[in-house]
């Protein structure tokens, strides 16, 4: 897989860091960068520090930026106020199902588009790509009404189905994987066919393992997008135990009006998994992003 982006970013960075003397210009660059970094990092700092600040600190005047002490009661308070553990689970299930389903539907479609003969491929592919142009918000009303018509909103199990159903396939993942599959040398495919290897076996035994980095990139991207959904889960979920994390922390803010520390702690707790993904899975994200450069 010739994948341009992620590795080249790091290489580029390393490559351009020869051991040279630090000039005045560079110091200026550092200063500007650090100054720019402060407003970027501050809300994150504030979310985490605010969650362990004693009660009055967040609302004190003049404002406190450093905690006057350290305590866990905000964090434990979150769990008393909303079923955070349950909502975590809901989000994992929701984003997990969407990711796996989208990967499967995308792998099949991408393979068909990239490596199989297909009458009218251009037009079919164009029609499929057109679905990317339709903003989800423009069809959210009928989708919501349909989900309700199918009686999916009256039980917790139904809600889980309703949460994921419209997102089981998406052309973004398909497009990304098609790009990857197209890099695949056709000779290998032909050789495999000669050996009597059918399409299904070739796809799952040979192509998918080889395309793992691209699939991982697509997966991370799909997962993050699903995890961060707001509008759809807001409409579909009802009770706190059905809500995803995103809706849960918003409800926490509505419910705990007097306790900013609790609200901030909820936000901080909810962001930990994605923060870890961004820090440690950055190269996969970058791969997904740049492949999407022709979304």
């Amino acid at each position, binding site marked *: 897989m*010739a*994948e*341009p*982006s992620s590795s*080249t*970013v790091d290489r*580029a960075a390393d490559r*351009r*860091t020869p051991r*040279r003397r630090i000039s005045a*210009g560079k110091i200026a*660059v*550092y200063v*500007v960068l650090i100054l720019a*970094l402060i407003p*970027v*990092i501050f*809300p*994150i700092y504030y979310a985490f520090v605010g969650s362990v600040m004693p009660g009055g600190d967040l609302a004190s*005047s*003049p*404002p406190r930026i450093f905690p006057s002490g350290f305590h866990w009661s905000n964090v434990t308070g979150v769990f008393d106020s909303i079923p955070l553990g349950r909502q975590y689970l809901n989000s994992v299930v929701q984003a997990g199902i969407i990711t796996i389903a989208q990967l499967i539907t*995308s792998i099949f479609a991408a393979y*068909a588009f990239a490596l199989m003969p*297909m009458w009218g491929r251009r037009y079919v592919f164009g029609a*499929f790509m057109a679905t990317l142009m*339709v*903003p*989800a*918000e423009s*069809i959210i*009303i*009928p*989708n919501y*009404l349909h989900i309700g018509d199918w009686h999916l909103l009256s039980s917790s199990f139904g809600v889980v189905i309703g949460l994921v159903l*419209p997102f*089981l*396939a998406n052309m973004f993942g398909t497009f990304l994987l098609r790009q990857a599959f*197209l*890099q695949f040398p*056709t000779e290998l495919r032909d050789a495999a066919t000669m050996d009597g290897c059918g399409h299904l076996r070739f796809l799952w035994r040979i192509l998918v393992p080889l395309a793992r980095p691209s699939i991982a990139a697509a997966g991370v991207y799909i997962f993050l997008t699903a995890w*961060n959904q*707001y*509008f759809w889960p807001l409409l579909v979920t009802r009770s706190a135990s059905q809500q995803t994390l*995103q809706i849960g*922390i918003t409800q*926490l*803010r509505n419910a705990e009006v007097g306790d*900013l520390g609790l609200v901030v702690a909820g936000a901080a707790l*909810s*962001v930990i998994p*994605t923060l870890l993904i*961004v820090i440690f899975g*950055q190269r996969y*994200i970058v791969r997904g*992003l*740049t492949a999407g*450069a*022709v*979304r």
Partner: protein
Amino acid sequence: MTAQTRGPAEAADRGTATDASRADRPARPTPRHGRDHALAYLFLVPSTIVFALFVVWPLGDSVYLSLHGSDLFGGASVFVGLDNYRDMFTSAEFGKVLLNTLEFVLLTVIPGVLGALVVVLLLEAQIRGTRVLRTAFALPFAFSVATASVIFSVIYNYQIGLANGILGFLGIGKVGWTTDPHVAMFALALTTVWMNLGYNVLVLSAGVGSIPAEVMEAARLDGASGLKLVRRIILPLLSPQLFFLVVVTTIQSLQSFGQIHILTKGGPDGSTTTLVYSIYKKAFAFGSSDFGTASAQAMVLLVIVLACTGIQFGVLQRKVHY
């Protein structure tokens, strides 16, 4: 895009450029049985079902709803033709919604892309710790719209929030971040720009990273450095990514909902009611259930987003073919 930048731009976009030539010719050089064609279609069945049920059908429904009045419960009642559209386009309220949407897009896209560009260019200044710094700038990407908005709502709180606390400490009067109609849109845009910064930095860094090292070295040997290097080499080579980012963040801005729902609820005085929020308000808020009007507005959103994507595809078509 000028002719001289075209070549390297394609190189920068390697992933998509290479496949362009291949997708157009038949995938197999040898003729195949019809069975293979059928199998290819079979592989598309799962996606087709999802798209038919959750994109195509609802699209039809949106059109249908937009042509009908609403009964007591929001359901489609009588056919009203284009009345919903007429009422919408003649109301001052909707004009304001469109203006707000435009304002929000401009206030989020321009600073968001320019800010990220400056950061990425500074990161290219051959300094140490680039990787750590880049990760730091990318961190907001981890924040969902809900998390970011909740944190900013605490900061923006009028009476006891940090933002006004700092202003008060500096002896400046308090600002109604989410309650002053002249400020709320900026506060909303600031939150959005912050959220988008991580994504924008990652995309542009990848773009800069994919500029061939030889090109940079050659330019340096020619004595290009600093701003000259940026203007002559990096910016032209980065133009595909910049263009992509502008289009994508424009569409994202058009679709923004969570931050508005959490921070301002479209207020104060309707000053932050964008198109998507207006759809939500008509359809779901205050027990309104006016699905007819909401669907008419949804059609407007669809057309605007189609136009944006159309522009993107149109421009990209010149160098990328499917």
